[in-house]
Structure formats: structure tokens, C-alpha cells
């Protein structure tokens, strides 16, 4: 007679498996990594010494604290890709925020290089695609989560930078920095105002000049109508055409203003929010119809901020984020992870950099407005980390990214140097704002410490906890226009003897240009056979690179009596060979206090070579890696020093006994 217990036991196991229960708890300690973008070891040490970061101090005493070598260049997408894959940029192929297309000399995103446009059938003004590819993430190497997941470790990764579009994976991963908004931009806001904005065309948002109408003709203006742009209207765009202002799907928005009170009722996407001045709305879903009759409705989410109702109408709409409830594009792997998180958390920021830095840079927000918005991001992030901690079990691996410090150091350094309080005021110093917000960066460090405290309190006792940052920070009081310097040195020549111009608008005379700058730290030779109109003979490239390097290292800021550049690196000397051909020929390591201008980064040549940095983007890290190391903290003793990012990656794998994938360079930080 057959044993009847076997099918019963099998059924019981199946039920347990279906219920998501593991029959036996894993017998190895878990690993929780807190990735804090931009945390600086000098600032952290000071705050720990002052007793302001008790949880970090606890880790430093019980385990270890030291500087962590960053990537070269120390840019977030480069550094995080290095951490993710355990490979240098030559291995993963991310060399800068901005790469260039050698065929056109135009800047392109390192995250999502453009793809060849597909074909479409045109029918009554509609373009119906019949072929084409979606942009993909070209980062090379094996992400640590894949290696862990394949080895059977339950791994969850929250808001990892440089993973948009998400690389295919079975592990649960939410993409972070680099994830675009619904327009395909990196934070394109909308500003509704009845007051003209100077230089609106140069701002990073959509400025809608509106009029407050009197709908009921009672003599009191009461209604503002506008629209929010969503994704490009691809069914009305010929393949490959870059969308113009009128080529986006839109959703209407109406603002009703009370006749007596400075309050506004926002009506958008079938929802309503009532806001006082200085208040943010909750997330409001918006639908964008790509096809008629609801055949393709793309859902986004937006938050409104009533900055001012009277005397001038000023309402800010956040970039339209991809809705996690019904993602119009993948922001997670597997795709369903976004909706799983939505079911547990409600709506959350999916845009890669949720802090509204553009509004502060563009001076639409003051520091109070900005702080209110950052508080929303912290709330959002706090709910998510609580969720992650609730799901974390012994034997699991979770990575959680915090943006608190990086963007706030970029934006608020001008109000008080947290690294050197005796430093002279930053050129963008604002005394009044400094009085209120001069200590904000310290506050954000303390917030990270509170989050760390929650992690330490909630993870199982034997969990290995690592806190790491991708780089540190420095003040940036001076801005370097690298392309202008190349012009003055005779390496870059503009047409018709002009002194200013742009690569993108065809102002460069490529028949006389030997080198040009694109990206925050890159210099490329105009190399024959590689660049479309290259003139530098490959045989002469080495000598020319040596000459430019030497001159760059002699670039002095005469006004400040200081060197501009600390070191210059040749790509072939610092990167592994796999993808070095895609790298800039030279990587410029600016000295502390200097950084490449936004203009030069995108290929613009302006008159000056150096000037004061009066932008609110006042702290920076796009310098020589040695002046902006990151942080490594752990609750386990770290025997040696001199570790860098790939060592942390190697540690994640060795903790679970998972062999390192081919090409991974690091060594376990806990192995003497």
C-alpha cells in the first residue's frame, strides 16, 4: 500500500511555500547595507566627536570606521556602478554623467544612450511603430544582486543609482538616481505663475505664464487653467524626431482660488487637493491618453506646492513621476515589484533624484520651500526603509540608498561650510538664509544617524550592518570652464575666429580642433578614425595627451593663487581594457574648490576660463578622487585600511560565500 503521508507532507510544504513561508529559517546572519550618497568622512568624524551622531559612533566603536576610496572620476553614477559591479569604469562602461557620440560630437546620457530610431507607418498624421528598440542600460559587469540572487540569497535593493532602465534580473530592485520622470527628463517641473519669469527659457522646468480668470464675472479673479506635460506623444512624432514643446501628451489642471482666503483648490486627474500657501499636496494620479478612447492611458503622479496665492499666483508642480501603481515604464525588477511596493506604501517618488534642486537652483524656491520638500522626501524614504526593515529576515541581504546628504550638500554648502566652518564665505553665500539654514547639512547628517539607529534596532542581532558612501564632499567656490581653457590653449578652435559658441550648435571648427571637453571631467582628442571629423593622427595622440596633461596640471587660478587641477589621468592607465575605448582620453582631477561648469560639461565655450561659482549648487565632489573619499562604517571590526568601493562589493558576496563573478576586482574588507 502506498504511503499516504508523502502526498500530505508534500501538500503541506506546498501550502507553506505558497504562503511565502520558509520551512526552516536560514542559519546565516543577514547583511544590511545603508548607502549614503555623499557622506564625507571629515564631517562625519567631527559630528561623531561632538556626540551628534550616536549611532554612527556606536558602529565606529564596536566595529570600524574609515575613509573609502571612491571611483575616478568621483561622480555618483560612476561610483555607484563601480559599487554595483565591483569593477572600475573600464569594466562597467560608465565614465561620467555625460558621454559623447563621436559621430556627432553631441553629449549623450551615460545611463541611456540613444538607440537607432525604428520605422513607423504614417496614417492620417499618426505614426504606428512597426519596428524599433527601447533604450537599454548599457552598464557592463554583473550586479551584486544577481550574483546573490542566483546563489539563493533573498536580496532586495532599494533606489540603487545608475540602474535605469533596470537591467534584467529576478532580484527585487527599485531603480534610483538616473530614473527619469514621465517626460523622460531628470526632474522637469512645472511652474504656474501670473508673473513673468526672467530668463524662463534657460530654466530647467516648464514655465506656464497664466492669467487668473474671473469665471463667475463677480469682479474677483478665481480660476487658473493650465496643463501638465507627460510623456512625448510618440504616435504623432516621426521616428527619431526629438520632441518639441508641443509634442508632449498633456493633462489639464485647474486651480480654484477662494475670493477671500489665500487658499487654492487644485483639480487634476479627477482628484482634488485643497492647499494653503506653503503646503504640498499628496500625490495625485494623472492619466495621459496616448491613444483615443482609453486604449492606451499612461499614468503618472504629481504633487503640487502652493507657494503663493496672492498677490501673485505661484503654484509649483513636481515633475510627473512614473506611477508605481501602474508603471508606464519599468522602474523595478521584476516589473511587479513596483506595484507590490505601491500596495504596501501607496504612491512614492520614482523619479531618480526626488529633491527639487532645480527649483532651488532656478531661484523659484527659497531655502524654506526647499526644506519643506526635502522633508517630504525624507518621509517617503522613511516609510520605505521601515517597509524594507519589516521584510528583512535573518539570512537576507538588503541595500537601501539615502539621498539626504548628497543633494543637500550640493545645494546648501554656500550657507556654511560643514567641513571647515572657518572657511571664507562662499560666493553664493546668502546671509539671511544662512541664519536659518546654515546648520541644515548637519541636520541631514543627524537624520541619517536616526535612520541608522532604526536599522540597528530592528535587524536581527547578528546582522552585518555596513554604512558606505560613494564619495565625500568639498566646497566649490570657483568654476572652471574647461572648453574655454582648451580654446585659450589653442586645442579647441571656434569658427570665424569667434571666442564663444557651442559644440551642439556647430560653432566648433573641427578641422582645427585637437581636443574638446564633454562631461564633468572628460577631455577627448579629436582623433582621426574615431571622431567623425578627427584630425589628430593616432600616432601623435600620446604626445598630445602628455602635453595637454602637463598644461592642465599647470593651470593656475591667479586670482586665488591656487592650482585648478590636482592631477590628470590617462584613461588607459586607470581603467581596465574592456571598455576603455569608450572613455574620455583624459580624466581631469580638479583640486578641492574647483569643478567643471555646467556649460563646459555640455560642450559650451564661454568667454571666461575661471569665475566665482555664484550658483546655489555650491558643494561638489567632481574632483580628484583623493580629495573626496567616501565613508565605510561597519558593526564588525575592519582589520586593514585603504579600501575602495569594489572591496565593499566583494564583501557582500563573500559574506554569503558567493564566488565573485569574472572581472570583479575587490577584496573582502574583513579579511586581513
Amino acid at each position, binding site marked *: 500500500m502506498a504511503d499516504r503521508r508523502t502526498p500530505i507532507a508534500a501538500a503541506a510544504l506546498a501550502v507553506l511555500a505558497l504562503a511565502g513561508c520558509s520551512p526552516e529559517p536560514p542559519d546565516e546572519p543577514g547583511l544590511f547595507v545603508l548607502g549614503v550618497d555623499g557622506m564625507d568622512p571629515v564631517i562625519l568624524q567631527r559630528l561623531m566627536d561632538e556626540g551628534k551622531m550616536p549611532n554612527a559612533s556606536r558602529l565606529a566603536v564596536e566595529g570600524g570606521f574609515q575613509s573609502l576610496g571612491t571611483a575616478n572620476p568621483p561622480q555618483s553614477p560612476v561610483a555607484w556602478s563601480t559599487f554595483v559591479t565591483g569593477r572600475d569604469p573600464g569594466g562597467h562602461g560608465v565614465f561620467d554623467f555625460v558621454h559623447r557620440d563621436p559621430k556627432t560630437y553631441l553629449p549623450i546620457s551615460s545611463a541611456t544612450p540613444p538607440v537607432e530610431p525604428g520605422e513607423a507607418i504614417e496614417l492620417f498624421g499618426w505614426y504606428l511603430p512597426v519596428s524599433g528598440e527601447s533604450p537599454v542600460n548599457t552598464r557592463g559587469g554583473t550586479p551584486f544582486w544577481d550574483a546573490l540572487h542566483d546563489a539563493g540569497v533573498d536580496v532586495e535593493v532599494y533606489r540603487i543609482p545608475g540602474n535605469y532602465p533596470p537591467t534584467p534580473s529576478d532580484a527585487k530592485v527599485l531603480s534610483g538616481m538616473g530614473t527619469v520622470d514621465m517626460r523622460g527628463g531628470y526632474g522637469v517641473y512645472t511652474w504656474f505663475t501670473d508673473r513673468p519669469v526672467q530668463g524662463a527659457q534657460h530654466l530647467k522646468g516648464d514655465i506656464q505664464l497664466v492669467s487668473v480668470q474671473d469665471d463667475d464675472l463677480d469682479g474677483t479673479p478665481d*480660476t487658473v487653467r493650465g496643463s501638465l506635460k507627460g510623456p512625448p506623444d510618440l504616435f504623432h512624432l516621426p521616428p527619431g524626431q526629438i520632441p518639441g514643446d508641443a509634442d508632449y501628451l498633456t493633462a489639464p489642471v485647474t486651480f480654484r482660488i477662494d475670493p477671500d*482666503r489665500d487658499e*487654492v483648490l487644485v483639480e487634476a486627474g479627477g482628484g482634488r487637493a485643497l492647499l494653503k500657501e506653503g503646503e504640498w499636496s499628496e500625490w495625485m494620479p494623472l492619466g495621459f491618453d496616448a491613444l483615443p478612447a482609453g486604449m492606451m492611458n499612461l499614468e503618472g503622479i504629481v504633487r503640487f506646492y502652493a507657494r503663493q496665492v496672492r498677490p501673485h499666483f505661484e503654484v509649483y508642480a513636481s515633475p510627473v513621476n512614473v506611477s508605481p501603481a501602474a508603471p508606464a515604464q519599468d522602474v523595478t525588477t521584476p516589473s511587479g515589484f513596483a506595484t507590490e511596493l505601491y500596495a504596501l506604501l501607496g504612491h512614492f517618488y520614482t523619479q531618480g533624484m526626488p529633491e527639487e534642486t532645480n527649483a532651488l537652483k532656478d531661484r523659484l524656491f527659497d531655502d524654506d520651500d526647499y526644506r519643506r520638500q526635502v522633508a517630504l522626501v525624507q518621509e517617503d524614504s522613511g516609510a520605505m526603509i521601515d517597509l524594507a526593515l519589516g521584510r528583512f529576515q535573518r539570512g537576507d541581504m538588503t541595500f537601501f540608498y539615502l539621498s539626504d546628504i548628497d543633494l543637500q550638500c550640493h545645494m546648501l554648502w554656500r550657507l556654511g561650510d560643514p567641513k571647515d566652518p572657518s572657511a571664507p564665505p562662499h560666493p553664493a553665500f546668502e546671509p539671511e538664509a544662512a541664519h536659518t539654514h546654515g546648520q541644515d547639512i548637519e541636520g541631514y547628517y543627524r537624520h541619517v544617524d536616526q535612520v541608522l539607529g532604526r536599522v540597528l534596532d530592528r535587524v536581527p542581532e547578528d546582522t552585518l550592518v555596513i554604512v558606505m558612501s560613494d564619495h565625500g564632499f568639498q566646497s566649490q567656490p570657483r568654476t572652471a570652464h574647461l572648453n574655454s581653457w582648451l580654446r585659450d590653449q589653442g586645442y579647441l578652435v571656434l569658427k570665424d575666429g569667434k571666442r564663444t559658441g557651442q559644440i551642439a550648435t556647430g560653432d566648433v571648427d573641427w578641422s582645427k580642433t585637437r581636443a574638446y571637453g564633454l562631461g564633468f571631467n572628460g577631455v577627448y582628442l579629436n582623433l582621426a578614425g574615431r571622431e567623425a571629423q578627427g584630425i589628430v593622427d593616432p600616432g601623435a595622440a600620446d604626445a598630445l595627451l602628455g602635453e595637454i596633461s602637463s598644461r592642465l596640471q599647470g593651470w593656475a587660478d591667479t586670482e586665488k593663487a591656487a592650482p585648478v587641477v590636482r592631477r590628470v589621468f590617462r584613461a588607459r592607465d586607470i581603467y581596465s581594457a574592456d571598455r576603455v575605448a569608450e572613455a574620455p582620453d583624459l580624466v581631469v582631477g580638479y583640486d578641492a574648490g574647483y569643478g567643471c561648469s555646467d556649460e563646459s560639461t555640455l560642450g559650451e565655450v564661454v568667454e571666461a576660463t575661471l569665475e566665482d561659482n555664484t550658483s546655489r549648487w555650491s558643494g561638489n565632489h567632481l574632483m580628484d578622487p583623493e580629495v573626496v573619499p567616501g565613508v565605510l562604517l561597519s558593526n564588525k571590526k575592519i582589520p586593514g585600511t585603504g579600501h575602495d568601493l569594489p572591496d565593499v562589493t566583494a564583501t557582500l558576496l563573500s559574506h554569503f560565500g558567493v564566488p565573485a563573478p569574472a572581472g570583479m576586482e575587490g577584496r573582502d574588507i574583513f579579511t586581513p
Partner: protein
Amino acid sequence: MDLFNALTSAVFDVLLAPFGYRLAWFDLVLWPVLAGIGALLVYKKVSNQAGIAAAKQRIMVHILAVVIYRDDILGVLRSTARALGWNVRYLAHNVVPLLVMIVPMTVLMVQLVAHFAYRPLEKGDVRLLEVALDPESGVSPKAVQLQVPQGVAVDAGPVRTPDGQVVWRLKMQDEGDFTLRLTAGDEAQNKALAVGGGPRKVPVLRSKTWEALLYPGEAALPRKSAFESIRVAADERDVSPLPGGEGGIVLWFFGTSLVAGFLLRNRFGVTL
């Protein structure tokens, strides 16, 4: 309208009472199945069963003819036309049962929605109180006043819109069943709020239009009221694994009653 709502609510409050509000899934399975059975019985009683059987048979005959004589174009067209004609007759046979069943089925569905689609607000929740004035009343939005009980705070507003709406933002500070009082000139109306506590019938909308029939949780507004509607949106109640909310319960009700009716048609000797 108000009397109708009051009567049906009284009946269903009793019918649904034995199982309470907590066992939502039980009522949400039982009543659609009973509705399917009831519909079968009504269908059997009021429909022309012989006519329906004949129509179905003729439709099948003509569809077969289309298949068999597919080389004869004229024959195919003729049979298709006849099949369509019998289809129309079949649908006509369904009109009377549909008319008989539509009211009780709708009432049952509305009552299930009223009882199980929403959950009470939670302490700390912030919600909009949306008041629409009847444009024919001549009452100005500025004349509308709100009194809130202890436990509910006005967080922002009112914002008065040019199309005769008045909106407040309310914050639920305590748990309980509260009554908001709205006045417009001499008229005063109440609006109920359910905050905290166990699952129960959650008041959502008071209206003086036909919409009141869909929201029997509160009395309809008087026909002569200056208020056209008073609404505080509620969140959907989680009745998983069944679909929740208004749309979910409506779809579930239709689907379950149809499936039940279809599966039980032979047992009850009904030709559909």
C-alpha cells in the same frame, strides 16, 4: 427616493445583520449566488421559455447552415441574416425578465456596496468635505457655514468656487460617529462621518439627485434644499481575496450571479 432608500436599507440591515460587517466575504458570496438563483426563478416564471428554446434552436440551425453551405455565397448570406433575425427575437424574449429583475438586482447590489465597499476613516486622516449648491437655489457659496463636532477639525478652507461649490479640508482627530452641520441661510443639513472602530456602513454622499439611490447610507437631501450634494470621500475596504470598492463589488456581484445562474440552470429547469 428617501422613503425607498429608508425601506430598502431597513430590510437589508436586517438581512445582512446575522453575519455582521466583519464576514464581508460570506455576504459577498452568498447574496450574489442567491441573486443568481432568484434571477433563474424569475426568468423561468416571466419569460417565454418555449419561445426562447425555439429561437436558440433556429439560431443554431442557421449557423450550421453557414458552415455546411459555405460554398454557396447567397445561401451563407441568407442563413447569416436569419441567424441575426432570430438573435433579435431571442433578445426580445429577454426584455421582460430584464425589466422585472433590474430593480431588485440593483437594490441588492447597491446595498452590498453600501455595507461592504468602504472602511471608516482613520484617526489622523485628512479628507475634503465637498459641498455643491443647487444653481437654481440662488444661494451664494459665501452663505454656507460649517460647524464641526469635537473630534473633527477644519484643517483648511473653505474654498468657494465660481461654479457653486464649497470645499473644506477636515482632519479626523478622534474616533467616533460624527455629525457635521452645514447651514445656508435658514436651511441646515447634517452630514455623517464614520471614524475609526470596526467595519460598518460608511456614509459617503448625500444628494438630492438620482445619485442618492446609489448611496443609501444616509438620507437623501430634500428636493427643495439649496444643497445639491454633500460628500466626504471614503477609502475602499479591503475584502481580499474578493475585489473591493464600488467597482470591484459591482463586477463581483454580476460575475458571481451570472456564473451561479448559468451553472444551476439545468437544476432549475430553465432555458437561458
